C-alpha cells in the first residue's frame, strides 16, 4: 500500500503533529508542560502520550497483533476517562490523527489511488475509535465496581462480626 509506505516514512513528523493536537485538547497553560516535560514520572500524561501515540500509529500502518493496539489505546483512554472530557472527547483523540493526515495529504487527492488508500487507512482509525469506546465503557464499569468495593472495605469484616455477636 503506497499510502502506508508514505506514512511510514513520515511517521515521526505525523506523530509529533498528532501529539501536539492531542495536547491542545487540554487548556493552553498546561500544554507547554505536557509537551515539553519529558520526565516519565514528573509528567506521566505527556510521557504516556509520547510513548503510546507512535505505538498506535505503528499498529495502524502495520497491524501485528490486536493486543498491542489494545494496550496502547487503553493506556491513553485510562487517563482521559477520569479527566474533564465527555465520552466522545475522551475517545476523540484518535480522530485528530485523521485531521493531521488529511492536512498532510490534502494536495495529493488528485492521485485517485492514493486518495482511496487514505480512505481505507481512515477506516482503520474508525475501527480504533470503536475499540477505544469499548475500553472506555469497560473502564467506567470498573470504576463503579471499585467504588462499591471501597464501601465494603471501609468496614471490613467488623459489621458482620458485630452482627454475629449481637444479632442483626
Amino acid at each position, binding site marked *: 500500500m503506497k499510502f502506508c509506505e508514505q506514512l511510514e516514512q513520515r511517521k515521526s513528523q505525523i506523530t509529533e503533529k498528532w501529539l501536539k493536537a492531542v495536547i491542545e*485538547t487540554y487548556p493552553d497553560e*498546561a500544554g507547554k508542560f505536557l509537551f515539553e516535560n519529558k520526565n516519565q514520572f514528573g*509528567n506521566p*500524561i505527556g510521557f504516556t502520550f509520547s510513548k503510546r501515540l507512535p505505538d498506535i500509529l505503528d499498529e495502524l500502518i502495520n497491524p501485528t497483533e490486536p493486543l498491542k493496539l489494545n494496550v496502547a489505546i487503553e493506556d491513553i483512554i485510562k487517563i482521559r476517562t477520569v479527566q474533564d472530557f465527555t465520552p466522545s472527547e475522551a475517545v476523540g483523540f484518535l480522530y485528530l490523527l485523521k485531521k493531521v493526515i488529511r492536512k498532510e495529504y490534502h494536495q495529493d487527492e488528485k492521485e485517485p489511488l492514493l486518495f482511496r488508500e487514505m480512505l481505507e487507512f481512515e477506516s482503520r482509525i474508525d475501527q480504533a475509535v470503536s475499540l477505544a469506546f469499548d475500553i472506555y465503557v469497560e473502564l467506567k464499569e470498573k470504576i463503579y465496581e471499585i467504588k462499591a468495593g471501597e464501601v465494603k472495605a471501609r468496614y471490613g469484616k467488623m459489621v458482620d*462480626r458485630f452482627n454475629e455477636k449481637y444479632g442483626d
Partner: protein
Amino acid sequence: MSLKMKPEELAQTIDYKPPKKHWMDNPVEYKKGTYNYAGNPDSIKYVHQPNPRKWQPYEEDWKLPENWKEIILEGFRERLDKFRSLKLFMDICVRCGACADKCHFFIGSGDPKNMPVLRAELLRAVYRKEFTLAGKLMAKMAGTTELTFDVLKEWFYYFYQCTQCRRCSVFCPYGIDTAEITFLARELMNLIGVNIDWVMTPVANCHRTGNHLGIQPHGFKDSIEFAADDLEDLTGIRVETPINKKGAEILFVIPSADYFGEPHYFTLLGYMALFHEIGLDFTFSSYASEGGNFGSFVSHELMKALNGKIYAEARRLGVKWIIGGECGHMWRVLHQYMDTLNGPADFLEVPKSPITGTVFENARSTKMVHITEFTSDLIKNNKIKLDKSRNDHWHATFHDSCNPARAMGLLEEPRYILRNVMNKFTDMPENTIREQTFCCGSGAGLGTEENFEMRMRGGFPRANAVKYVAENNGVNLLTCICAIDKATLPPLLQYWVPGVEVAGIHELVGNALVIKGEKERTTDLRNNPLPGKEDI
C-alpha cells in the same frame, strides 16, 4: 460555511480544541465525580459551626447568609492579623512557577488552576483587591478579583482539590507552605457554612465518641477483642487488650480505620503481636481512639479540639508518654501545631523505650513517638526475632505517606524496618519518593466515592511510579504508614495498576515476628498461606 466545500476541506474546519479563554475567566462547572458533598447540618450543629443547612455544591442556591462576603472578608482580616504566615504567604510569592508542575492534581489533570501558584492566586487576587493599596488603586494591573459567588464556587472547587500534601512547598524558594493557604481558605469558607461532609461528620463523630466512625467505647472494646481472637487463631497466642488502663506506661493511639477497615486491620494485628512479644506496658484509650484529625482539614479551632483529647486522655490515664500508630496527618498536627495548640506536654516524661533504653530526643516536647521509630529501635538493638521468609510472597515498595515524610522527616525508619522483615524490597524512582513523594490523591478529606474521578487524576502520578516498579521489578505490594493511604490506595491501584496490593509496615512486622510459644505459622496475618505452606 460554504456548501461547495469538498468533504476533505469540510473536515478541516472541525475544531477539536476547546475555545481559548483566560484561565481566570472560566467559571467552575461541578461535574459528577469531581467534588465532595456538602457538610451534613446535624454534624455542623454538633460542633457549633456556622450556617448548618441542607445544600449541595451543584445547586444554584448555596443558601449563604446575606452578608456572606462581609463575613469572609472580616474573617480574612482577622486571620491576617493573627497569622503572620498568612500575610507573608499572600505578599511574598513572586510567581516564579517553581511549584507549578509539582502538584499531583495538576500533573494528573492538566487543569492549570491546580498549579499551586494559581490555586493560591484565587485567594491572593481577593487579598490584593481588599487589603492592599496597589490593589485598590490599580485593580487590573495588580491582578485583583472581587469576591463574587463565582469566585466562591472556584474557591470551594479548587481548595477541595488540594490534599495539603505540601509537595509544592518543597520546591518553593521562599518556603511558602501552600497547604496552609488551603487551610486558611477552607477556614474562611467554613465561616459561612461552606464545607464538606467527609470532613464535618468525622469531626462531629470524633468529638462525640473519640473517633471518626462514631464507634462507642463498647464497640471499640469489641473490635480490639476481635483482633485478639483473630491473632490467637493465627498464632496460638492470646495477647492482652488493655483499654483505659490507668497507670500504664504508654498510651497507644491509632487511626480508627486500623480496627475497622481493611487492609488496616492487619496492621493492628501486627502492633498487638509486637507489643505482646516485648511485654510492653501500654494501653489503648476508648476516647483517644482516633489518631486522625479531620479538624485540621477545616479549621484551627477544630484541629485544636481533636488534638487536645489525646493529651487529655494521656493525663487522665496517668501514662508517661505516647506512641502513635500508622497515621498520616496526625503527625503533621503533632509536629507542627501541637506545641502551640495544646502543648507543651510538660506533664508527660521524655519518651524512653523501656526495652532498649533509647531516649527519643526528637519527641522531647510532644512526648509522642512514631511506631516506626519505636520498632526500628527494637530491631537495631536486636530485641525481636524476625523470619523474613514469611514475607517472601511479597515484593514491596514503600509509599512515603505525605505527612510523616514531609511534615516530620520520617524517611529512613520505615525502610529500615522493611529491609529487616522481608527479602524483597525495591524503592520507586527518586523523584516520586521521600520528600518528593506523590500524594495518594485522596488526603485532607477528599477520599469520597463521589469524588472518585478526581482522586484517580490526583493519584495518577503515584500509581504511575508504582506501575513502573511493578512492571520492571515484580513489585506486588505497596506499603505505607497512613490510614487514608490504606483506604484509598487500593482503589487507586485497582484502576491504574491491577494486581498490586496495599499493606501497612506493621502487618509485615507481624508476619515476620517470631513470637515465643507460637504455634507453627502456616498463614500470614491475612490468613493467606505462607510461602511453602500452601498445602497445609
